């Protein structure tokens, strides 16, 4: 599903080059549950942004779904994101003036997949995540864990193949965080490919595969 070859990424501050990723080779197959572990500044989020088609490498080749995506422009990348990838963020990023149900439905607006009965599907997802009574609540009326589950429902509404979660438990207490991770494990068992980016070593146990990133390179890649 994902093939990275010699990926390098640098930011430029004036004349100075600031290398973030220093040559990443990585393959992730369909159905994996991968944890990217690294301290802040290690480059793990940059790597996730590149994998998630939100950012571009400075050097190297990226094959997504067996297709080289290096030459694609913003608009085409947006189409691929919509079709294949669901995103979950640390701060949830729910729209404050939409209720839970409407937030889940946002990706449908841009979808070309022709999902049948999106509203019912959104309700089912929310019900499954224990939010049946919360569908008409605004984000401000939901707890952190509930908001994150709404965000996960939003990531799933368009039937993506891949879910990318950047510090999904970072804003939650550890109990709620574990529940969210359990949710990812369950989704993975149903066939979704999931990548979770975190700095929290306690989350390592939830993955089938652990990739440690240190200073812009992969320092460890263990499959249990």
């Amino acid at each position: 599903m994902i093939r990275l070859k010699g990926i390098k990424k640098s930011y430029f501050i004036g004349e100075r080059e600031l290398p973030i990723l220093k040559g990443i080779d990585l393959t992730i197959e369909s159905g994996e549950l991968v944890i990217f572990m690294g301290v802040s500044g290690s480059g793990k989020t940059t790597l996730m942004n590149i994998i998630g088609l939100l950012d571009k490498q400075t050097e190297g080749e990226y094959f997504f779904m067996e297709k080289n995506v290096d030459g694609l422009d913003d608009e085409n990348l947006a189409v691929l994101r919509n079709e294949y990838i669901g995103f979950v963020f640390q701060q949830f990023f729910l729209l404050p003036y939409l209720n839970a149900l409407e937030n889940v439905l946002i990706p449908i607006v841009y979808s070309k997949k022709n999902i049948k009965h999106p509203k019912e599907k959104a309700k089912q997802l929310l019900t499954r995540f224990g939010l049946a009574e919360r569908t008409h609540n605004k984000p401000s009326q939901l707890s952190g864990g509930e908001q994150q589950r709404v965000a996960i429902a939003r990531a799933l509404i368009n039937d993506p193949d891949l879910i990318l979660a950047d510090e999904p438990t970072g804003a939650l207490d550890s109990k709620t965080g574990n529940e969210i991770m359990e949710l990812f494990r369950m989704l993975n068992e149903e066939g979704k490919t999931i990548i979770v980016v975190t700095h929290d070593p306690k989350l390592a146990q939830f993955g089938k595969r652990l990739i440690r990133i240190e200073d812009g390179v992969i320092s460890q890649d263990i499959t249990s």
Partner: protein
Amino acid sequence: MMYSFNFYLKIAFQNLVIHKARMILSLLGILFAVMSLVAFGNISSGMKLKIDNEISRFGKNLIILRSGLVFITGRGARQFAESKTLKLEDIKIIKERLSEIKEAVPFFDTTYPARYRENTLKVSIMGATPNIFTVRNIELMVGKPFTDKDNEDTLKSAVVGFKVYDNLFKSENPIGKYLLIYRVPTEIIGVIDEKGVDFTGQDQDLQVYIPLNTFMRRYSNVDYIKGAYFQTEDGVNLGEIKQKIRNLLRRIHNLKDTQKDDFSIFTLDDILKTREEGIRLVSVLTIIASIVSFLIGGLGIFAIMLLSVAERKMEIGIRRVVGSKKKDIIFQFLTESVIVAMIGGIFGILVGCIITVIVDFLGGFPFFLHIGNIFLSIFISVFIGIAAGIYPAIQGTKFVPIEVLQ
């Protein structure tokens, strides 16, 4: 597509609700612009309709001749200087010489008290030939007009206006009763339908018509008249006839080139023109005010949309992440700015119509909906919404998702 449009509408309205005060301020400009455009269109059309009605009530294709100097204003004709030089014979000659003139109605008008039993009322007496009833569209509620023979026989019969009947007789049948006009008992033979104030500012319902000869011999004993109405055939240039009458009358009166006219000739158009100039001035001012308000309204929406786009970076970011294209973002913000402008426009139309109803009621104009201005207002509102929203919307597409979602 339909689903996404509904979604945009929903988001637009949610934002409107959240930022009520701000949005109301930004749509006020459009509201005022549309309000003045719509109200002015409606009211001026109503005024024109009223003028048209007045003309047809006053009589078609009329030229009015008055002895002495008359000053034309938008409210009618005001006597400026009297003259006793206009004779019945003059009118006959004019009628004979000018084939375009279909009817000529010489008249003598003045104000007398009229008394019935112990009630007295100041009325306008008009001695005229019987054709005045057809030329001036005077229709009777009851009774009959006087005839040429009545005129020849100098019968003391009168056709009275509605208020004369209403004030002096109340519920009594006035036909056959005698009204004391200037102490002359005059038999009432007809009552005129209620007509209101006419074009020249004369209250039609306070008129008493009597045969001209009767008036000149039995009431006033004069050998001159005060004026005449001339009615031409349809399609004749009234201005030309006016000039012909003037030239002819100057010759009859033996006026030298250096002498001024001892009479005045005018048409309803002359009175109309002074009114229309007023309306035109107001219309220019209204258009200027509308344009300024539209510009202010557009700037208001522009500013609010810029603010809104800047505030909603996160929203734009997350939309981009889940797959919206730039055109989706532009379309969404344009939907919002157009909705704000349209709400301003719709309320402008409503307020404009309310103002129309009030002004029409106070001014006695018939209510008229100027559909053209209403459509124009909606069109301009949409246009302003797009023009004011396009730049902020494009700004919105310039955010890079991973930067705004840090």
